[in-house]
C-alpha cells in the first residue's frame, strides 16, 4: 500500500513536472518568436503610427513637423481654403486625383482580369509538364527592375517610338498619336506591370478546378459561354478575388508608373503624397493623404469582398 501511495505521488509529481516543462516550452517559444514579432511591430505598425501622428501635427517651415496638434492637414485633404492656399495650388485638385487614382486602378484591375483570365485558363489546361514552362514565362518580367520596364514602355509608345514610327512609316497616320503622358499610358504600364499578380492566383484556382465539372456542364446542354458563366467563374472566384486585390492595391498607390508614363499633370495619389513630403514641404498633409489612401484601399476591399462573397448561385 505504501508502495502504491508512493507511486501515486511520484506519478502526480511527474505530471506536474510535465506541465511546468510544457509551460516553459510555450514561454520559450514566445521568446524565440520575439525578434520576428519585434521587427514586425517596429517595421509595420511603428511607421504607420508615426504617419498617423504626423497627420495631426502642423507642418514645419522646411519640411518636418511642428509638435502642435492640428486638424488642418485632414481638412485640406478634401476641403480647399482659397485664402490660405500655401500648398502650390494643389488642394483643389485632390478630389480629381482621388478620382483618377480610383478609376485607373479599377480599370487596370478589370483589364488585368480580362487578359489574365484566358491566360491562366490556357496554362491550367496545358499538359502537366508544360505548365511550369508557361508559368516561368509569366514571371520573366519580374527579373527586370520596374523602372527599366517602365522606360521600355515609354520607348514603345512615345511620339517617335516604335509604334508611332511604324504607323508613320506604313502611312497609316500622318502625325504621331499622343500616347505617352496620358491616362492610357499609365494604365498600359500598370496592366503590364501587375498582370503576373493577376495570372498567378487565377492559375492557382484553375489548377484546382475539376475539369470533369466542365464536361458535366457541356453534357447538360450548357454552351461554352454558359459553362464559363455558370461553372468556371463561380468555382475560380477565390482566384479572381485574390488577383483583383493584388492588382488593385498597388495600382491605387502606384508611384513609378504614373510618374514616368503620366508626366507631370496626370498625377495619381502616390505622386501627390510624394509631392507633399518633397517639394510641398507639408508633411502633415502628406501623412493625412497616406492615411486617406489606406482608408480608400480598405473601403474598396470591403465593398469588393462583400459583393464577391455572395452565393454564386441564386437559383437554389
Amino acid at each position, binding site marked *: 500500500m505504501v508502495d502504491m501511495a508512493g507511486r501515486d505521488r511520484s506519478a502526480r509529481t511527474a505530471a506536474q513536472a510535465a506541465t511546468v516543462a510544457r509551460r516553459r516550452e510555450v514561454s520559450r517559444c514566445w521568446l524565440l518568436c520575439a525578434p520576428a514579432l519585434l521587427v514586425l511591430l517596429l517595421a509595420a505598425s511603428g511607421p504607420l503610427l508615426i504617419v498617423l501622428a504626423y497627420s495631426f501635427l502642423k507642418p514645419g517651415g522646411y519640411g518636418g513637423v511642428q509638435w502642435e496638434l492640428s486638424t488642418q492637414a485632414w481638412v485640406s485633404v478634401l476641403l480647399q481654403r482659397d485664402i490660405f492656399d500655401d500648398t502650390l495650388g494643389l488642394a483643389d485638385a485632390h478630389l480629381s486625383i482621388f478620382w483618377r487614382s480610383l478609376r485607373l486602378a479599377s480599370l487596370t484591375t478589370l483589364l488585368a482580369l480580362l487578359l489574365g483570365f484566358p491566360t491562366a485558363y490556357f496554362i491550367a489546361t496545358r499538359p502537366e509538364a508544360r505548365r511550369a514552362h508557361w508559368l516561368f514565362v509569366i514571371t520573366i518580367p519580374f527579373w527586370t527592375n520596374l523602372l527599366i520596364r517602365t522606360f521600355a514602355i515609354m520607348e514603345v509608345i512615345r511620339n517617335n517610338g516604335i509604334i508611332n514610327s511604324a504607323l508613320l512609316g506604313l502611312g497609316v497616320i500622318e502625325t504621331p498619336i499622343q500616347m505617352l503622358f496620358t491616362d492610357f499610358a499609365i494604365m498600359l504600364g500598370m496592366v503590364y506591370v501587375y498582370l503576373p499578380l493577376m495570372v498567378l492566383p487565377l492559375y492557382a484556382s484553375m489548377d484546382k478546378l475539376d475539369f*470533369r465539372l466542365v*464536361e458535366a*456542364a*457541356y*453534357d*447538360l*446542354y*450548357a454552351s461554352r459561354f454558359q459553362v464559363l458563366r455558370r461553372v468556371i467563374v463561380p*468555382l475560380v472566384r477565390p482566384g479572381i478575388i485574390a488577383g483583383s486585390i493584388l492588382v488593385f492595391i498597388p495600382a491605387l498607390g502606384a508611384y513609378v508608373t504614373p510618374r514616368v508614363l503620366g508626366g507631370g499633370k496626370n498625377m495619381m495619389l502616390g505622386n501627390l503624397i510624394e509631392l507633399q513630403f518633397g517639394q510641398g514641404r507639408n508633411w502633415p498633409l502628406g501623412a493625412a493623404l497616406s492615411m486617406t489612401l489606406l482608408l480608400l484601399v480598405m473601403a474598396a476591399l470591403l465593398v469588393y469582398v462583400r459583393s464577391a462573397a455572395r452565393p454564386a*448561385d441564386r437559383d437554389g
Partner: protein
Amino acid sequence: MERGASKPAVAIDIDGVSKVFASAEGAVRALDDVSLAIRENEFFTLLGPSGCGKTTLLRLIGGFEHADSGRILLHGEDISALPPYRRPVNMVFQSYALFPHMTVAGNIGFGLEMLGRQKAEVAAAVDQMLRLVQMEGLRNRRPGQLSGGQQQRVALARALAPRPRVLLLDEPLSALDLKLRKEMQIELKRLQHETGITFIFVTHDQGEALTMSDRIAVMSDGRLLQTGTPREIYDRPADRFVANFIGETNFLQADVVATGAGRARLQLALGPETEAELPDGAPSSGRVTVVVRPEHAMLTPDPEQGTLSGVLENIVYFGTDTHYYVKLASCETLISRIQNTRDDEAVYEKGQRVGIVLRKGAVQILRD
C-alpha cells in the same frame, strides 16, 4: 427477346468505330473497329477490365471524344460530329461531377435550365426527379453535405431530368460500399423501368453486369469479344477471355472425336469421353479448349463413379456454398462449387480421393 416480326428499334448504332490515343510511349489503340447496336429501352452493359476501351466508347457516345473512323447513330441520325451539348444523351460520371457551388435542386435543374425551359417547368421537373430518387428532404443541401450514396442519387436525377434518349453511366457504383451498391443496383433497374430510357452502363464488375443487364458486351483491348444476354454470356462464353472474366471457370483440354447436329463428342485429355455443345465458330476438329463452370462439376465420394477423379486439395466455405479444389491427374486444379444445405454433413475431407460428375450440358467448347 424478339417478339414476332416487330424487331426492337435501335437506339444507338455504333458502326465500325476506331479510336487511337497518342501517348508518350506511342499510339494506344483504345477502340479497334467496334460495331454494336443498342436497342431502345434496353439496360445495356459494356463490361471489361480497366483499359479495355469501354469508357472510351461511352465517352464517344457522350461526345467527349471523337472517333478516328466509324460513325455513331442515335435513332438513325449520325451524331458523330455533334458536341456534347447538342446530343440528347446524358451522362452519370464516375466521380458524379456534381457542381459544388449549387444546391441539389440547382444541380438537378441545370440541364433543363440550359435548354431554356420555363422556371415553373424546371421546378416541376426538379420536384419530380427528387421524388423519383427519394431525396425530397435534401433539395437545398450542397453536394459537399451529402453522403456518397446521396450524391449518386443526385447525379442520377441530374442526368435524367432533361429526359435524355439515352443515359450513359460510367461505373457509377464503384465508389459505394457493398451494401449501398446492392441497393443502388436495384434502384437503377427500377429507374430504368420507370423512365423507359435506354441505359448504357459501363462496369468492370461482372456480378453487377450479370444481375442488372438486359444485354452485355464484353470488351478487351479495344475489341468487342461477345454480345448477348447475361445467360448467353455466362452459359456460352465465346472464348477463353470471356469465360475467364465472367465467373469462375475450369479450363480443360480435349480432342474432338465426332460432330453432328450442333453437338460434339469429345475425348478429354485426361482420357474419358464426354459430350458437349458445339457453338457457331468453334473448331469442329482437333484439339479444343472446353470450359466447365464450377457449379456444373459435382462431387461424388466414389472416384470410380465420376467422369474424372482427383484428390481434394482444399475446401473453402463461403456460407451459401462451398468450393472444393480437386487436383486432377494432370496436376491441374478443378474447382467444384456445391451449394450448402442445412442437413448435409461435411462428408468430404482434405486429401480424400473423389470423383467428379460433369452435369449434362456442363462442357462447353470455346472458339480459341
